[in-house]
């Protein structure tokens, strides 16, 4: 059977293009406020493929062979740094670990000089944790390498929020329509800020609950709704019992004890009484509700031990998902195929 025919492109059957991801246009991952829903989906689908790699006996693929990934951490971190370094190694990249302590930073080398040096050494991606909000944005303006924000002060921690969303998708199939309660010290939490952007982009209902002194007021108007039209739509609920009612997901945040010296809380004990996520309070959430926590956990403060180690806790699962998400991000920013 052979025939010649004319076909208009518009009516041609859909070919491979339909199944392709939309072109990935981001060279850096700085926060989730500029990722569309489709782009978050691309990250989550790629994470799924990376989870399969992690399930193998030999957890290594050759994808980033010849690429160099630098972790540049100006703040202490164990899990995020280890997670990024393992992710880079699983993709066969070379990893250079750079800690500010013990480096020329102590001799007064500036942030930008450090970045330029790393670039000259051949870094393809630089993963930055910094105590100043916005530092990764400055970095992205000064170097060719891809920048991934691994936490900049209170501002953003996109890879953590993405791994939270992946965990939710794994449990519920979708993030759309879930009621997510972010609980506790939201003011000082970069994880909460990135999650607010990401979760609302993906169609979740986000409720913030915590002591009024620990809420991010620029996000909210007086009535507890979003302050300005461009702000993500979140709701504020002061009473924990009301917030938890009907929740699918509860995210107690670490009470940053090192940041509680300034009188924002009368006492830790009062916080525990009013806002600790206990078994009883969790009972107000839906039966299938799960608990996420960005870690490290202060057991007995923001969350009761029987909850953080209980059957509804997905906290340990989050750590293993973290490596897969970071593999996906590294692949997307330096895995070739720009454009």
């Amino acid at each position, binding site marked *: *059977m052979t025939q*010649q025919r*004319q076909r208009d492109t518009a009516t041609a*059957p859909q070919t491979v293009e339909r*199944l*392709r991801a939309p072109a990935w246009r981001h060279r850096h991952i700085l926060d989730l406020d500029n990722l569309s829903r489709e782009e978050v989906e691309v990250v989550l689908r790629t994470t799924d*493929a990376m989870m399969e790699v992690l399930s193998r006996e030999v957890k290594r693929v050759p994808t980033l062979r010849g690429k160099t990934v630098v972790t540049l951490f100006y703040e202490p971190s164990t899990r995020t740094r280890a997670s990024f370094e393992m992710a880079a190694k699983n993709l066969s990249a070379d990893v250079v670990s750079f800690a500010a302590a013990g480096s020329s930073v102590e001799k007064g080398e500036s942030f930008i000089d450090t970045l330029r040096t790393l670039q000259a050494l051949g870094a393809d991606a630089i993963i930055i944790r910094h105590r100043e909000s916005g530092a990764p944005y400055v970095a992205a303006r000064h170097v060719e390498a891809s920048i991934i924000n691994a936490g900049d002060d209170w501002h953003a921690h996109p890879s953590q929020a993405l791994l939270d969303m992946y965990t939710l998708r794994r449990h519920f199939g979708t993030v759309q329509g879930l009621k997510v309660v972010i609980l506790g010290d939201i003011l000082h939490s970069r994880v909460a800020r990135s999650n607010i952007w990401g979760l609302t982009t993906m169609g979740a209902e986000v409720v913030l609950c915590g002591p009024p002194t620990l809420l991010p007021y620029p996000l909210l108007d007086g009535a507890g709704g979003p302050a300005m039209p461009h702000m993500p739509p979140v709701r504020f609920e002061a009473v924990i019992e009301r917030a938890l009612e009907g929740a699918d997901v509860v995210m107690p945040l670490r009470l940053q004890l090192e940041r509680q010296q300034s009188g924002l809380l009368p006492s830790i004990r009062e916080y525990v009484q009013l806002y600790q996520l206990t078994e009883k309070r969790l009972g107000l959430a839906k039966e299938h509700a799960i608990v996420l926590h960005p870690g490290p956990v202060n057991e007995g403060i923001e969350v009761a031990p029987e909850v953080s180690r209980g059957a509804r806790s997905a906290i340990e699962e989050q750590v293993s998902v973290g490596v897969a998400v970071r593999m996906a991000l590294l692949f997307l920013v330096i895995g070739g195929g720009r*454009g």
Partner: protein
Amino acid sequence: MAEKVIMGDEDIRRALVRVAHEIVERNRGAGSLVLIGMHTRGVPLAQRLAAIIEGFEKVSVPVGILDIGLYRDDLSTMDLKPAIRRTEVPVDVTNRRVVLVDDVLYTGRSIRAAMDAIFDLGRPEKIQLAVLVDRGHRELPIRADYAGKNIPTSRVEEVQVRVKELDGQDEVCLVSPSAVEKGQ
């Protein structure tokens, strides 16, 4: 856009039936086989081959899905980043006879990547290659063990395989150079 249809749905069906029989004949049964379809169009083809084999051999052959995106040698030169999908191989490939299934065999580079990927999953007894269309122009020492059809092509032409499961119909088309240019 001018296209020449080289195989229609009946041609494809007959070719797959023949290939299914050849696979079972060459391996003296279907006992230790696993069919691994390469994303995207190798996957439905592998599933169909497994169904045909089950039909006449009464043996259910496991079917896996392989995404070679993480193993490509041309990632840095590609315009579009490939979508990476999950690899799912339901059985341990160690000591099994793996039949890789793809729609078109061309340069052989995807098959090289697929073999690397399979060796990361285990150590198969054998790897064989089944393709619907072999269009020539190999750049690596790779050949198909089973081919639905050999189609001599020029490098400027394009072979498009469409399958019902993804494209709504079964056909293999040869797209001519002028049309390829126009399409870009």
